[in-house]
């Protein structure tokens, strides 16, 4: 998933960083412009197109009746999948999700699941037999960096717009999917001692360590994941967590809460 960046560009970014700067003029903690377009796919029960700078991610939510898992007979089911289609980056290849796609999907899933944003108990139709299955399908369209945060944002935005299609299946009136919390994933890379949030594709390719922190509306944490082959100090982690909480709060209020 790494993209080759020329040595010259690497030096350039490094020198900028020493001066406390980033190529696009952002602060180290700042995000690129965010836009969220909702309900772009009418065939889906919910959908959102998220733009994070030039990064574009489309998330579709489909909701269908199906069988519950044997160990949770009275709860709805969430199935999250991410397709890193080769349209989105020269480094993506056709085929079933590789470890990057799987990690991304599982992290998006963890954000939704562990934040308890979906009340799975309320998605039971007939206990032990039929429940609502919520499919969250993340479709990366243009990977210009930090698809993790864009995907997570797209997932919760799509869920917020989703309707349970009860009528279509003869199960009463349609109703909005009940969403209880708004988890926000914020990712930082660590590069030469500094941490930069919302890395673009060049910054990602230079840094060898990344930390994603998923926060809930009450400021608590519902997910963390380090990735990459580098190390993090305890201080770096604490610092990233603190800023992640702030960034999460801002994004949540600005884009998702009405």
């Amino acid at each position, binding site marked *: 998933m790494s993209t080759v960046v020329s040595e010259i560009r690497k030096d350039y970014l490094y020198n900028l960083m020493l001066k406390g700067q980033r190529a696009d003029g952002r602060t180290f903690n700042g995000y690129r412009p965010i836009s969220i377009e909702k309900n*772009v*796919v*009418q*065939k*889906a029960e919910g*959908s959102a197109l998220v733009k994070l700078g*030039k990064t*574009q991610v*489309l998330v*579709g*939510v*489909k909701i*269908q009746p199906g069988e519950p898992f044997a160990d949770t007979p009275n709860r709805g089911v969430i199935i999250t*999948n991410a*397709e890193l*289609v*080769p*349209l*989105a*980056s*020269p480094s993506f290849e*056709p085929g*079933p999700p590789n470890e990057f796609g799987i990690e991304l999907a599982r992290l998006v899933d963890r954000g939704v699941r562990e934040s308890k944003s979906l009340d799975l108990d309320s998605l039971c139709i007939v206990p032990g037999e039929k429940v609502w299955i919520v*499919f969250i*399908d993340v*479709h990366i*369209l*243009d*990977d*210009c960096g930090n698809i993790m945060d864009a995907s997570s944002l797209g997932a919760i935005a799509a869920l917020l717009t989703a309707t349970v299609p009860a009528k279509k299946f003869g199960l009463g009136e349609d109703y909005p999917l009940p969403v209880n919390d708004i988890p926000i994933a914020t990712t930082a890379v660590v590069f030469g001692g500094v941490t930069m949030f919302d890395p673009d*594709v060049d910054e990602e390719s230079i840094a060898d360590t990344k930390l994603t922190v998923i926060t809930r509306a009450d400021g608590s944490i519902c997910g963390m994941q380090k990735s990459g082959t580098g190390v993090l100090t305890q201080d770096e982690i604490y610092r990233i967590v603190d800023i992640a909480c702030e960034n999460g709060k801002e994004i949540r209020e600005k884009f998702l809460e009405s």
Partner: protein
Amino acid sequence: MEDKITFIKDGIRLDGRRVDEARPIKVEVGVLARADGSCYLEMGNNKVIAAVYGPREVHPRHLQEVSRAIVRYRYNMASFSVEERRRPGPDRRSYELSKVSREALSPVILTSYFPRSVIDIFVEVLQADAGTRTAGINAASVALADAGIPMKSLISSCAAGKVDDQIVLDPMKEEDNFGQADMPIAMTPGGEITLLQMDGHMTVEESHRAMELAMKGCRDIYNMQRKVLIDRYSQMENATRQEEAVI
């Protein structure tokens, strides 16, 4: 394919179109930053996006051709693009559509310019409503031009169908599901056919009428493709001029 619904009343179809009228089309070029060329296209309720990468190195190597570039085409439907969620990954239908779409575009791509290379065309169907293969080919053709791939001409694609015993242009989902026949084509502006498929039931005469109607549809689409590319080039030229003016 049943005939119980009335699809055409007083020459007007369920969605208000005349029999020889295509659905509204929207084309945007250069919509993706990572791809070498790209195009977003809507044809009625179809929403597709095409990206072109290349010419670039071939992997795996044994697919290389010594005297020309190979062309690959991947037609893929997003899981949420259809009524009932589909499993991700290619099925038999998408393998066939990828093949015929590749063969629809190959005749105009000057592959001999780029020996040992590959030109990759990726089409993602974001929303499907009958006609995704033609929409995909139209978008891919524009994306190829956007990527600067040398081509003899653009390719335009449109279907004709048979509904209520009448030949109609550009059938939508209901007409496709319950209609009598469907015939997608693709062609060069010069009228050379590069894609032709048909299923359903048509007399030979009807097949002639369908082909002529579909060719008319292609010509209209060609004009739109051409316009959007000209606009794109003039924008780029203006941008360059402004840069030069600044200097």
